[in-house]
């Protein structure tokens, strides 16, 4: 009996030991973690911004498994923010409360303020920029996601913001097919300017080809697009020598005046700002407007949800035309970036870094580029059939990206662009004349940006 009891005791002890050992061993090799990813400005067609992280997690788990470690990553995705303002408010306040998502997909413009505040950490501290796939990224895009010569983020997509013409209306205005085909080159060389846009738009309204207010149908809310018109009239956003922001009063006045002229000529509505986006998309994709401007990603919306079957047969796209002899035809690229937030556990940051690295694989990024009609981030994408065979990606890259510049990464740029747009709105709606609006802009920039802005 005693032997039986002692044997029982021994085996129980052995079993307890074995179980303990197994669980400790498990602890040593298995790592479970949750990576949260938040993406701003992300619609149904942009889901690969988030899904790419999931795909990357799968790949990283497999890599770890081969190295004999068990890694279980749960990716939590969030993109249901009302707009950019709501997204940025959510990210900043969550980060201040110590509850930031691991990865954010946002404008490269957030890098400057967020890095100063310590909300994000440099991605170059965690990944090898010389290794695949990061050594294949376009250098200019990596430059855009850097600040103070430090790579803070990885470019998630590229785009640019073209000017659009509805071909049928242009034909009725007297343009031949050949002339419409030659329009992009004419815009680029500065032969066709915003003055011509106004002229054609006015004719289109007078000939009743389009309704009043639909000759030139701009973006309905604040956005980088409006800085393009400032550049069209010779404005520059940053003084390269001093690294300070630049307010060119003459260019700003001319830029505001253009929109005021458009309203006076009845080609643009005075109350245009604030129009619903859904209505706007439906109207431009159905030829209700003669000319307008938008983004390369609009292609997905026009041909998808809005049901425009023959994009190239109906729409011509060019750079934003020059405004006058001081300016140039231009377009702004506003890449989104994957950013890593500061976390208590550095291991989590490293895993997140590896995930955004893998998500930058040309093949994975191509899924996003083609589904959402954005442009690629890496050179090798042109060797991937899905990308290479897409007419829009190919033509938009060739026609626009060469002339594209980005807005500056500067802690004061957010305020700069906000004040610039506010000034535009007051002139556009007739609350102030362009000269008065610029005077207000100057006063406000001087007061809020101080030394960080040069006024010319």
């Amino acid at each position: 009996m005693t032997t039986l009891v002692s044997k029982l005791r021994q085996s129980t002890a052995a079993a307890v030991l074995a179980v303990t050992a197994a669980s400790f061993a498990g602890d040593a090799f298995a790592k479970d973690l949750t990576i949260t990813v938040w993406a701003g400005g992300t619609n149904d067609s942009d889901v690969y911004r988030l899904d790419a992280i999931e795909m990357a997690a799968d790949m990283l788990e497999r890599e770890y498994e081969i190295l004999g470690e068990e890694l279980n990553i749960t990716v939590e995705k969030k993109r249901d923010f009302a707009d950019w303002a709501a997204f940025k408010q959510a990210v900043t306040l969550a980060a201040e409360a110590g509850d930031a998502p691991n990865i954010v997909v946002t404008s490269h413009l957030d890098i400057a303020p967020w890095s100063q505040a310590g909300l994000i950490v440099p991605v170059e501290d965690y990944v090898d920029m010389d290794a695949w796939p990061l050594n294949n990224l376009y250098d200019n895009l990596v430059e855009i996601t850097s600040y103070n010569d430090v790579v803070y983020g990885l470019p998630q997509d590229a785009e640019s913001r073209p000017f659009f013409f509805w071909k049928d209306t242009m034909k009725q205005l007297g343009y031949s097919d050949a002339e419409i085909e030659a329009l992009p080159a004419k815009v680029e060389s500065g032969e066709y300017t915003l003055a011509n846009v106004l002229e054609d738009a006015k004719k289109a309204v007078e000939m009743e080809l389009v309704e009043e207010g639909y000759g030139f149908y701009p973006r309905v809310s604040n956005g980088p697009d409006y800085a393009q018109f400032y550049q069209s009239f010779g404005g520059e956003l940053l003084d390269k020598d001093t690294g300070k922001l630049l307010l060119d009063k003459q260019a700003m006045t001319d830029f505001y005046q253009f929109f005021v002229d458009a309203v006076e000529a009845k080609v643009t509505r005075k109350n245009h700002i604030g129009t619903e986006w859904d209505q706007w998309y439906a109207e431009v994709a159905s030829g209700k407007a003669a000319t307008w401007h938008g983004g390369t990603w609009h292609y997905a919306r026009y041909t998808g949800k809005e049901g425009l079957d023959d994009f190239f047969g109906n729409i011509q796209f060019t750079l934003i035309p020059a405004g006058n002899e001081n300016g140039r035809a231009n377009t702004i690229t506003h890449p989104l970036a994957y950013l890593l937030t500061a976390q208590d556990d550095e291991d989590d940051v490293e895993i997140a870094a590896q995930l955004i690295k893998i998500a930058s694989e040309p093949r994975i990024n191509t899924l996003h580029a083609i589904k959402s009609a954005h442009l690629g981030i890496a050179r090798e994408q042109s060797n991937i059939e899905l990308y290479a065979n897409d007419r829009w990606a190919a033509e938009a890259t060739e026609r626009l990206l060469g002339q594209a510049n980005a807005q500056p990464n500067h802690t004061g740029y957010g305020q700069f662009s906000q004040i610039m747009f506010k000034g535009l709105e007051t002139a556009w709606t007739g609350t102030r004349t362009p000269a008065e609006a610029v005077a207000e802009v100057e006063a406000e920039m001087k007061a809020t940006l101080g030394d960080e802005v040069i006024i010319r």
Partner: protein
Amino acid sequence: MRRAHLLGLGFLSPALAIILMLFLIPVLLTVMFSFTNMSTATGISGGAYEINAASLRKLADAGAQESFVETLGKESFVVDDAGITAAAAAYGEQFANEVGSQMLGERFSSRRDLERAFRKLKSRPRSTRDIKKAANLFKRSVLNIRFETAGGLVGAVTDNGIEMTPDQQELLTKTIYTGWTWTSDNFALMAQIPYVWRVAGNTVLYVVLTLAASVGLGLFLAITTFYLPSSSATSFRAIWFLPRILPNVIFVLMWKWLAWDTGFLSSLFANFGVPPRNWMLDTGVNAWVFIVLINGIVGASLGMILFGSAIKSIPQSMLHASEVDGASRWQQICYIILPQLRWPIMFICAYSTLSLLTSFEYILLSTDGGPGGATEVWSLMAFHTALDNYAGNLQYGLGAAMALMLVIVGILASLVYLRIFNFNDLVAKPRIEQ
């Protein structure tokens, strides 16, 4: 203290807690924030010290010597004995020996170059992160390092052999601090921005017009429903109460449907040849009409209930007597009802002024301050500045200063109203009990 006092305090405690949590603490924090330059870039929880291209530019602007700025801005990685000893401790002798034998004395101007050199070594650490950490052991400059304290930064600068005078040290730590600092500039800033003055004007317009609309409509409804048979009066009151109990978003959405280019008004007027337009945002005047209507209708329901009950408390005999004397309805309203509604009207005016000053949700949802800032009111501007704008550059300090102005105006207005009401008279004991 008697037990009864404690009990009273106990009963009061929820109210005290609410006052503390929802009024005093927010107000104190607003006061605190408004005397800072806090923004997204400075962060809320505090800053650090970092020498980088942007902060060096600020340092030069602040008058630092060019040579000093240049020395601080130099990036350098040097393979020296100190670094090799540190590498041996962290990543093993083999790696350290290899570095020592092949690279001793070499200088690199960026970490990336040093990483590249390390990757050629056989015994290098096999993870990217470790290579970067190993490279940092050889860093002999202070560029792009985040120091939590000024002492840490100064120590690192001196460790790297950069001499500083006390003045230079003070200028450096003051200029390159990334966090917020105390300042009273926000108030001067507000006065300098022309837009702020326009918004102040808008706010006065908003309060006066909306108050007039809601009190006027409230009075009209209270008086007209008073003269209706009680059953239909109740249904009318219920209908007019709907806007108040309807979620704000839905209420405003219905107004938007009414006013959109493709909405009800446009479709209706299209029959008369009027081209469609967004009636709400067409001009500043249009936007104001809608703002006043939206807010006025919501506000009217409160007035209607209060005035309605006040009218009911007027002794019926007075009205009967006036009818015997041959008074018309209009005379009854002018000589009996309105004079006795003086206090409720004043109360609604006072209460609504204060709540209108701080309320912006209906404007935010309908025009969002547009067109061109024509309907931007003070509280909405504070919200946009501090918490919600497209560029994401949240200016907590300036926004709080704007909000503080509202608190001050609110308190002043309350004092003025208390004086007009003669509050002591209102709470005096009825004469009959004296």
